[in-house]
C-alpha cells in the first residue's frame, strides 16, 4: 500500500484455503481497522431444497453486507454472493487478491482439514474434503474469471495487490506484521 495513503477499507479475496483470514487479521491488527469475516454473515439454508427460504437468507445477507461496507473503516475477508463481492470491491480502497496456483488451494485445504483439532476418523476427513474440493474447483472455473475481469476494470481507481504464490503471500504478510 502506497506510503502516505490513508487505508480505510480493505477487501481480502481469493479461493478457499489460500490464507485469506490469517492475512486479513494481520492487516486489521497492524492498521487498527475493524476485522470482519464474511462467513459469519452468510447463512446456508437448513433446508437445501427450500428455495424461498434461501432467497430470504440471501436477501438478509445482502442487507447486512450493504450496511457493513457502508461503514467508514473495515477489513473484510471472504466471498459471499457475487453481487456482494462486486459492491465490496467498488467500496474498498485497497484490495488484496490471493491467487495461488490452484493446486496450492487443494493442498492447503487438505492440510487444514487433516490437521484440524476436531476429533474425526479417516472417513470424516474425506467427507470434508469431498465437500470442499468441488467448491475450490467451482470457484476456480466460474468465479475467478469474473473476479479477474472486475479487478481489471477497477484497477485504475484502487490499490490492488495480487499475491500469486505462497512466497509472495509470506513477503506481503511479513511487511504487514513487521512494520
Amino acid at each position, binding site marked *: 500500500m502506497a506510503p502516505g495513503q490513508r487505508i480505510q477499507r480493505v477487501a481480502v479475496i481469493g479461493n478457499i484455503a489460500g490464507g485469506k483470514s490469517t492475512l486479513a487479521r494481520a492487516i486489521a491488527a497492524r492498521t487498527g481497522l475493524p476485522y470482519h469475516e464474511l462467513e459469519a454473515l452468510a447463512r446456508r439454508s437448513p433446508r437445501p431444497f427450500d428455495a424461498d427460504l434461501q432467497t430470504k437468507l440471501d436477501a438478509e445477507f445482502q442487507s447486512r453486507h450493504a450496511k457493513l461496507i457502508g461503514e467508514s473503516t473495515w477489513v473484510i475477508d471472504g466471498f459471499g454472493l457475487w453481487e456482494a463481492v462486486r459492491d465490496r470491491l467498488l467500496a474498498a480502497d485497497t484490495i488484496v487478491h490471493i491467487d495461488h496456483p*490452484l*493446486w496450492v488451494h487443494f*493442498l492447503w485445504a*487438505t492440510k487444514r482439514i487433516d490437521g484440524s483439532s476436531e476429533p474425526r476418523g479417516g472417513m470424516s476427513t*474425506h467427507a470434508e*474434503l469431498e465437500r470442499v474440493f*468441488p467448491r475450490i*474447483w467451482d470457484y476456480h472455473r466460474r468465479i475467478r474469471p469474473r473476479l479477474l475481469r472486475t479487478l481489471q476494470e477497477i484497477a485504475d481507481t484502487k490499490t490492488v495487490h495480487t499475491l500469486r504464490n505462497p512466497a509472495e503471500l509470506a513477503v506481503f504478510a511479513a511487511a504487514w506484521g513487521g512494520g
Partner: protein
Amino acid sequence: MRRVAVIGYIAGGKSSLARVPAAKRGLPYHELDRLQITSDWRAVPRPEFLARHAAVIAEPAWVIDGIGLWRSLSDRLLAADAIVHIDHPLWLHFLWTTKRGDGRRERSDDPPPLPELERIFPFIWDYHRRIRPRVLRLLQQLAETKTVHTLRRPEELAAFAAAWGGG
C-alpha cells in the same frame, strides 16, 4: 479389441479399470509407471524407456495403463484399436490422490508409492493445464479411426467397468 490404451491422470481409477479386460480376455497387462519409473521413484532413462515401450506396443495384444512421455503416448494411441480416456472433473483426481495408500506396499512388485502431496499436486495441475489439452486434440483426430471411450465421472467409470467385466 486386442490393443487397449487406458489413459488419464493419477488416481482416476486407470489401473483398476485396465485390469478388468486384461483378466477377462486374457490380454497381457502393462503398467506404464513400471516401464518408466524405478522402485525408488526415479525416472528410467528416456532412450531405455522408449525402447521398452516400443517393444510392448509392437505386440499383437496388450492393455496398457498410463501416460508416459508425450512421444510414447502418441505412438501408443496410434497403435491401439481401443482407447479408454478417464477424464473426471479435476477436483476428483486431487481428492482420490489424498485417499491413495500412504506409501504402503503390500507386495514387492506393487507399484511405487506416491510421493507426498506437495510433490504430486503440482504434477496434477501441470497435467491438467499442459498435457490434457494435447490429449484431447489428439483423441479428436483419432476418433474416426479408433474406438474412443471417454469416462467423465465415477458413475460412468463404474458402468463401463461392469459392462466390460461382464462381456
